[in-house]
């Protein structure tokens, strides 16, 4: 067990280092930040001064070392627009994104797992076909279209929900539903096929023959064993969903990390976008790590490998 945890921790650290290299290289290879910042009409001494101030005249490896040691100390630079530390901006927006992603994730998982179980118990039934259609549409419809249609119906025509913004739970309904629909599709498909596999097993037949009530067979004997692929998928889905928040936050003016990053990119506020990329990747890797630990807990075969 400890060896497994240690190995995964080491892998996570390597992953984080890899991400930081990619972000750093992306930032440096695409041009001299001092030139980009000051524009084409800049004077040479200004450019040189800025280069020296940011340490751009040092060797690449030294620059990377500075970048990484500053990052470890929580210093990712200042926003060019807000003149505030980008780390603080990112942390300030994090709760909003976590709320949105968390609620959508809960809706998507419950809908996907429950729908998948019902569909697997009665394959070919009208519910199964309905679930297939709904999840198929979910992966084919761009999230912004779902959002626009929801806004037109529930905000513009019916006046039931606010168009955008944050504050009350009513602001959360449309963005959360939009995200949940797009990501429940995968959950539903996977739960269905995992359940179908398990329901075919001998011990399920035995349980039925023994006279165990059907609901107990499904909830206890089958679902518990189908849970492993579902948990793995759920972690993957959470990341897809987290990326989805970028577009959703932009449409609904939801003040989260995604909106921060989009605004940063549109204003060419490079340090903000860089921090968003790096910190969000670290968050992803941490979630992945947590899921792998959970996985080892659920599945003894991994623990004692």
């Amino acid at each position: 067990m400890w060896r497994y945890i240690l190995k995964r921790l080491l892998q996570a650290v390597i992953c984080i280092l890899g991400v930081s290299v990619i972000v750093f290289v992306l930032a440096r290879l695409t041009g001299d930040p001092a030139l980009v910042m000051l524009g084409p009409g800049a004077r040479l001494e200004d450019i040189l001064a800025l280069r020296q101030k940011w340490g751009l005249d040092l060797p690449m490896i030294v620059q990377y070392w500075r970048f990484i040691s500053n990052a470890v100390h929580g210093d990712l630079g200042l926003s060019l627009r807000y003149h505030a530390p980008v780390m603080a901006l990112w942390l300030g927006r994090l709760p909003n994104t976590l709320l949105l992603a968390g609620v959508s994730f809960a809706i998507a998982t419950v809908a996907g797992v429950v729908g998948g179980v019902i569909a697997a118990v009665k394959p070919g039934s009208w519910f199964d076909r309905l679930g297939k259609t709904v999840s198929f549409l979910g992966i084919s419809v761009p999230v912004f279209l779902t959002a626009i249609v929801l806004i037109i119906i529930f905000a513009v025509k019916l006046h039931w929900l606010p168009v955008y913004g944050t504050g009350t739970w009513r602001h959360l309904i449309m963005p959360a539903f939009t995200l949940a629909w797009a990501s429940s599709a995968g959950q539903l498909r996977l739960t269905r096929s995992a359940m179908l596999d398990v329901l075919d097993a001998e011990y399920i037949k035995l349980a039925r023959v023994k006279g165990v009530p059907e609901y107990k067979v499904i909830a206890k004997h089958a679902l518990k064993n189908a849970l492993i692929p579902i948990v793995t998928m759920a972690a993957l889905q959470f990341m897809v969903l987290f990326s989805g928040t970028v577009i959703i936050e932009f449409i609904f003016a939801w003040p989260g990390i995604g909106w921060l990053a989009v605004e940063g990119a549109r204003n060419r506020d490079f340090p903000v976008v860089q921090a968003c990329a790096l910190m969000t990747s670290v968050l992803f890797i941490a979630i992945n790590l947590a899921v792998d630990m959970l996985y080892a807990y659920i599945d003894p075969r991994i623990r004692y490998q």
Partner: protein
Amino acid sequence: MIIGSLRRVTRYASWPRIRKSLKGVPWFPLVIMVLFVVVGVFGRQLAPHDPLKIDIEIRLLPLFFMKGGSLQYPLGTDHLGRDVLSRLIVGSGVSLQVSLVVIAVAASIGALVAVVAGYLGGWVDTILMRLVDIIMSMPWIIIALVFASIVGAGVRNIIIILSIFAWPGYARVLRGEVLRIKQGDFVRLAVVAGASKARIMLRHIFPNIVNTLVVISTLQVGSIILAEAGLSFIGVGVPPPRPAWGAMAADGVGYIFTQWWLAVLPGVAIVLVVMSTNLLGDWLRVRLDPKFRQL
């Protein structure tokens, strides 16, 4: 198997056989896809109006069957008086171009990495697969924003960034296939016969992953189009004035109180194309690989 079935078709072609092989072909998605490709390639010639011509006099015309609409501009005009139908037609070109180039690049890199990593194994495999893990654990859309904030928006940049994030998916799935294939007797026979590693990878392993490669590629077209549209929607994709579906929808958002169709129509175009590629991909998957039939 694809190469094989083509050979079979040319050798045994007869009407009943052709009819039998056409059974179950999903016609609706196929028609949409052909339409999409034709419109995407010949968009400039097919568009009834110039998609870039601004005419403030006729701005925000409604759909043709509504009051004030005209058949000259069947889908109305946008906030700058540009013909929406023409913009939709020309906009398909961007989606087609981006998705085809990204798929070509990602499939090539992905297949190469999968064959090399899977066949050679050892430290090559470890390094390449760790790289795949790293890229897959990054939030692609935010990295795309990083890229856009440094070098600006543009079709070439979208293609680069989407290719970087598309190939690991191929590599991971195909590597699994390679690991299975390399256990086959025909590979051992080739080794015994003295074939070089490069030859085995190219002539014995690669032809066996082509089926899966085609299926993944078809299924990927939809997600690439969705990704491009999403980037254009948030303003870091195709720069104006070139029409792109995502950017058109974003332009329309400001008018949803009065001209809702401006935002919805480009979205509907995307749905039709993405749905078709997904349906075709699913069909191909079942058709080319009986193993997947239970899924």
